[in-house]
């Protein structure tokens, strides 16, 4: 199998200038994610699992390490310029969190279709693909034209996942994708993740439920809570 992402020696701490403090979050994380496989990040809360995903997405700037997305071109997300990072986000990377961030006042179908629209795919085609994903995740059709702002946690989460999958990304990052789902919705989500793996998507995921790690993970990476370090400044 081919490696899609290799993270090497990733460290991240947050410097709070006003309090003169440095809060360590991730220390020296190293792992790979391969095409068609799922790498699960596990560890106690505060071990920096979500921080790793945000570093790979480039929302957080790491202090050390590399996060190489292999492909054409191969990009180190720790050091690449902002436009390269934006290009990766548009084409290769989908990031699904517990929270749905989207443009307010946009209907659900358009929220899900947005990643395709951003690539210049025609509106009708993008919306058709979006409807297909929403159907697979069993989101009631009467909600499709409504903005997701008033949806329940579980509904939002499925909208979020639908948007992450619509692109067929090379790397899919999931932060507790089943956290507020009932049994049946969780099963649909698991099926969707399996289908993505089968189609060759590399998945990096955080699950709160060990059963899901057991069921879906090909590799497991355990993160430890970093110890408090004295402020360098």
């Amino acid at each position, binding site marked *: 199998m081919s490696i899609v992402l290799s993270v090497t020696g990733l460290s991240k701490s*947050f*410097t*709070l*200038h*006003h309090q003169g403090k440095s809060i360590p979050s991730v220390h020296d994380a190293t792992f790979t994610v391969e095409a068609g496989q799922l790498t699960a990040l596990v560890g106690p809360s505060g071990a920096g699992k979500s921080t790793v995903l*945000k570093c790979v997405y*480039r*929302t*957080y*700037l790491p202090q050390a390490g590399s996060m190489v997305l292999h492909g054409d071109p191969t990009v180190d997300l720790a050091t690449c310029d*902002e*436009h390269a*990072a*934006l290009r990766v986000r548009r084409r290769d990377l989908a990031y699904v969190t517990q929270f749905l961030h989207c*443009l*307010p*006042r946009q209907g659900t179908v358009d929220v899900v279709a947005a990643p395709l*629209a951003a690539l210049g795919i025609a509106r009708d085609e993008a919306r058709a693909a979006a409807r297909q994903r929403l159907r697979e995740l069993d989101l009631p059709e009467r909600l499709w034209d409504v903005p997701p702002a008033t949806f329940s946690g579980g509904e939002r989460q499925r909208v979020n996942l639908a948007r992450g999958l619509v692109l067929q990304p090379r790397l899919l990052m999931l932060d507790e994708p089943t956290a507020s789902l009932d049994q049946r919705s969780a099963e649909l989500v698991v099926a969707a993740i399996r289908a993505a793996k089968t189609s060759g998507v590399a998945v990096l995921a955080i699950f709160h439920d060990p059963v899901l790690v057991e069921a879906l993970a090909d590799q497991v990476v355990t993160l430890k809570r970093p110890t408090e370090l004295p402020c360098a400044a």
Partner: protein
Amino acid sequence: MVRETPVLTASGLTRIHGRGCLDCVRLTGDAQGRNICPSCGSVVALADVSFELWPGEILGVMGESGSGKSSVVKMLHLDDQMTAGSAIFRESDGRSHELAQVDEVEIRRLRDTRFGMVHQNPHLGLNFGVSAGGNIAERLLCGGERRFAVIRETALGLLDRTEVPRGRIDHQPGQFSGGMQQRLQIARALAPRPELLFLDEVTTGLDLSVQARILDLILEIQRELGVAMIVVTHDLGVVRLLASRTIVLRHGRVVEAGLTDQILEDPQHAYTQQLVMSAL
């Protein structure tokens, strides 16, 4: 296909109000905590500001009042001359212009046909002496369009796009609500199909539902026309919604630049951290 060259490359933009001295830049800035030169009393509105703007991109320029964010726009829109630095504007037909050196004729042409400007205060961006349609027509006439039917059709199309009712084409902007004045300003700015749009605090002071419609309109314009934009604001919510990248100014200097979500979630500079923590 997307061009692989920036629309705008600004390097070392500097604007000093006053006679200036050799120490102005060294004695001011973020580390010094001031923008007035203690040696000669000149105001250093901007010093050494550099950034690129790519086709179809929205760049946020954030900072408190007095940080120099409006000065950036004034210099790039050629309303004010830079003291030092360079700004290269590239038209889609391949011509490029050094904005520090363009002559009066070229300034006029760029402003009339290639740039669009939307001010916080509609009185600066609209002609209150003529009708809504006249405001759009003025811009088209400046661009050389003389056919009445084309002007009328373009004006109606722009009013539709900015959701100003067609029936109000002959009304003067003074009879419009604040939100509608702002939408008319956007229509006027878009009339000559500009390649670069400047938006200076365009939603400041409007109530929330009106703000929302203006922001939606700006995103729609970006999606459909692919115009590159520079959005100046002190409002974190506005950059979060509109801009893919943001620069943060303080005392006339860029103190932080990056992807907008990175700046809002993992700010590196003490000032940006304070700004983000102060947000409601």
